[in-house]
């Protein structure tokens, strides 16, 4: 199940970056992958839809919220926390 979540998030980010999932590593930042602010908002929407969660994210203050978008890994960790909180 855990692996499934990781893979699904990476697949969403890869699709946004127009890459294949194998080219996306957990250490990458979204900027590394060429994802801009609009791409970020679209990725967050796709993740919310995929896991039926609500992600607290305001594009005006991307780094101040509880949802850490600094890397693929931090996004995976934050999404898992939101999924756990929902249960």
């Amino acid at each position: 199940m855990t692996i499934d979540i990781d893979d699904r998030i990476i697949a969403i980010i890869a699709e946004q970056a127009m890459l294949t999932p194998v080219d996306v590593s957990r250490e990458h930042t979204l900027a590394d992958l060429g994802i801009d602010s609009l791409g970020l908002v679209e990725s967050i929407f796709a993740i919310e839809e995929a896991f039926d969660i609500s992600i607290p994210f305001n594009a005006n203050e991307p780094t101040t919220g509880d949802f850490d978008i600094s890397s693929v890994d931090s996004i995976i960790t934050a999404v898992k926390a939101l999924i756990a909180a929902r249960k």
Partner: protein
Amino acid sequence: MTVKRVVITGAGTINALGHDVATTLEAMREGRCGIGPLDIRDVDRLSVQIGGQVRDYDEHAHFNRQQISLYDRFTQFTLLAAKQAVDQSGLVFAGELAAKSGVILGTAGGGVQTWDENYRAVYEEGKNRVHPFVVPKLMNNAAASHVSMDWNLKGPSFTVATACASSNHAMGLAFHMIRSGMCSAMITGGSESMLCFGGVKAWEGLRVMSKDACRPFSATRNGMVQGEGAGVFVFEDYEHARARGAEILAEVAGFAMTSDAADIVMPSKQGAARAITGAMKDGGIARDAVGYINAHGTGTAANDKTECAAVADAFGAHADRLMISSTKSMHGHLIGGTGAVELLACIMALRDGVIAPTIGYEEPDPECALDVVPNVARDAKVDVVLSNAFAFGGLNAVLALKRV
């Protein structure tokens, strides 16, 4: 081609700060905030629950049943503001004047409330029948058409939709039509009313909205807040206005529009700076003459820093001497109607010597290091002012006004 001078001889509005110009300007002088909890259906399902809503408004107090079946809320606001403006101007449109007068209005969404109500009826409630006037009620030109009918305006009339710059584009085109001699008078400005479930939900999706307040230029800003309402003006050939002894509120001196040709949502410093510079050049205005700018100032991270950088580029050292404020902090962002309501602050600066403040200002942002007239209105004599509008889609429109 003769070049005519263009002046404003009437103004009207309804917005979150008031139902007429006097009340609105008083609120701006006092730095009053018209933004509050939204009172709309299904607000509990919205993550953004505030807005600059028009309060204490009863459509039945202004319009009969037949009119209401044809007037979306954005049209109602337009007609109320237009009546104030035309009444103030004292113009009576008949004969040659009627043939040489028209209506150019801005709106981004048109009859959004009508779309929303009727989608709800057919999708949510499963109805298979809608009111026969849904189309003439929701169409973007409904407001412009009803103004033309109410006031017998038989010249060019149409609606401009350039998102957040709609009103400025509309007023700029009205200015051009009079300046070129094509028209003698134009009813112009804009209107918007998308504070309904679907309208706010769509904006939520972009994640640029604030959940608590609009704080333009403040380091603590966290997004825009939507407003609603209308601003409508009578633009008139100066000689025509003078010949009939009309009271002149201000002169429309210059206008420029540019396109960023870059990004669908992110603003561009170069595109904005070119529009600012272009409006001054168009009006033969030296940059040192500009005393006040009514900013686009949405309260988003991106707009405010880009706008300040554009002003710094366009004005050089003078950028530190002029005043720039965003009245969206008080009435919210009226989207397609915003430039029209904001033009009232420009007229107040020129006529009354009062600069409307940017309220909600908490902390300086080094990327917005201009005199943003924080929180409290200021007395100052200014001779030339600008009004900025920079829309999604990279479409920029800047007006220059002068005292007469």
